[in-house]
């Protein structure tokens, strides 16, 4: 019997999504039994040209993690799109741009300067930056070029499904792969997690009063917070109201507030703006000066509200 073929690839990511596949633990063996992994650069030895020679549409599904920030990533994403019947954006970076998408608050040039010149621990007296082409004696060396902005996967290629999370819970990956194998998939374009916001299923929702009133936003280091009570009710910012649920409340159970890695719920485009709206309504003041003061207690609101979704938000970055 011919087994379905699966490929996994990474772009601009930290490797956490790859780890999430490994975290399937024994389940990975069942999957390996049921499918042929034809390409997985992190874990197994394959050549890029093997993939290029694969007939179009031969791969049943490809999971791509990481945002698109460089030429080679765009190139591979396009090749894998051709070769695969299904493309699954795996993890926050492929889904929304992720944390790496926060680089869109800066120009590509500033990012390079920071990393290669300005960081105090870097010593680079000649001010050398990575170049696409370098001549070394008589040889020409080349590196992939950096794009000016970070993009989510669906801004480069068509994406069939999304597995959200930073990284996605292994359980969601397992369910997604099973759904692919059994051909039991929801409508194209679906995010394979809950439809509703995290607050709907949050174990602390009972402790959330009808009206949360916030006089000052507190930061985690400032207080010792109650491990059972709603974070927002304690003045701690939690992105639960504007974030898709289905994560298994990993952060909440570890007594940390939600940071929004599952992205917006269905029908919401801009998670940051939606969260801003929700959060603003909880502020307990009607005085302009006091409102300024309260909002000043959030040092980096854009970075916080758009932590995972900047690259796929309406403005996509600094304009």
């Amino acid at each position, binding site marked *: 019997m011919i087994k379905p073929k699966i490929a996994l690839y990474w772009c601009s990511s930290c490797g956490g999504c790859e780890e999430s596949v490994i975290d399937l633990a024994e389940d990975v063996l069942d999957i390996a039994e049921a499918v042929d992994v034809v390409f997985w650069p992190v874990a197994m030895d394959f050549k890029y040209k093997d993939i290029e020679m694969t007939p179009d549409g031969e791969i049943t599904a490809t999971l791509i993690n990481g945002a698109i920030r460089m*030429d080679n990533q765009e190139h591979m994403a396009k090749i894998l799109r051709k070769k695969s019947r299904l493309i699954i954006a795996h993890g926050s970076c492929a889904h929304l741009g992720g944390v790496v998408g926060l680089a869109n*608050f800066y*120009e*590509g*040039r500033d990012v*390079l300067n920071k990393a290669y010149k300005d960081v105090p621990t870097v010593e680079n007296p000649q*001010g050398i*930056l*990575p*170049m*696409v*082409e370098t001549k070394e004696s008589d040889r020409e060396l080349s590196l992939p*070029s*950096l*794009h*000016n*902005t970070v993009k989510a996967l669906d801004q480069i290629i068509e994406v069939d499904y999304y597995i959200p999370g930073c990284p996605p819970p292994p359980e969601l990956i397992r369910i997604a792969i099973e759904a692919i194998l059994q051909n039991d998939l929801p409508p194209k374009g679906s995010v394979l997690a809950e439809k509703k916001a995290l607050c709907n299923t949050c174990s602390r929702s009972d402790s959330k009063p009808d009206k949360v009133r916030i006089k000052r936003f507190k930061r985690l280091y400032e207080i010792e917070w109650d491990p059972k009570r709603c974070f927002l009710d304690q003045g701690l910012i939690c992105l639960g109201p504007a974030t898709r649920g289905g994560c298994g409340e990993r952060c909440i159970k570890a007594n940390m507030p939600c940071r929004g890695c599952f992205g917006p719920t269905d029908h919401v*485009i*801009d998670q*940051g*703006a*939606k969260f*801003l*709206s929700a*959060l*603003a*309504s909880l*502020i307990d*003041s*009607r005085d*302009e000066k006091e*409102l*300024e003061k*309260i*909002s*000043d207690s*959030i040092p*980096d*609101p*854009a*970075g916080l*509200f758009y932590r995972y979704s900047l690259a796929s*938000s*309406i*403005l*996509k*970055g*600094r*304009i």
Partner: protein
Amino acid sequence: MIAFEPKIIAFLCNWCSYECADSVGRAQKEYPSILRIVRVMCSGRIDPQFIIEAFRRGAAGVLILGCHPGDCHYKEGNYQAMKKYTLLKKVLLQFGIDKDRFRLDWVSAKETDKFIKIVSEMVEKVKQLGPIIPPQPSMNPSVSLPGGQQAGPFTKGGIKGGR
């Protein structure tokens, strides 16, 4: 050179500021014609996404006019607008949108002069600030950098694409 004619989107509340714009018209007073008015039932209804979307689609300024605090037809809609505005202003600044491009103010149905004053000030400021996205120096996206910078030796072919 053609003078910069900004697009300014104004969200006006049905009960006061939209009524006020009507009064201005009935009184045959003049105000800058570049204002594009969107009538909403309440300033509190304005989702921050509307404002962000307006900027994305090329608005050079966004103006929200609601009922005076305490006068909201729905009791507290304008307070909600005020809270969202205060936070959003900070966020927009981080996106590179100047604070003078986004304004919230209150006008009642009869304050025609105040309406004209706010609108004129807004138009004036936005005209001074110019368009949000400066014109690109080159049509070739692979070498032009946003902000009209020229590609230097370090960035030659090293950074690709605009926003």
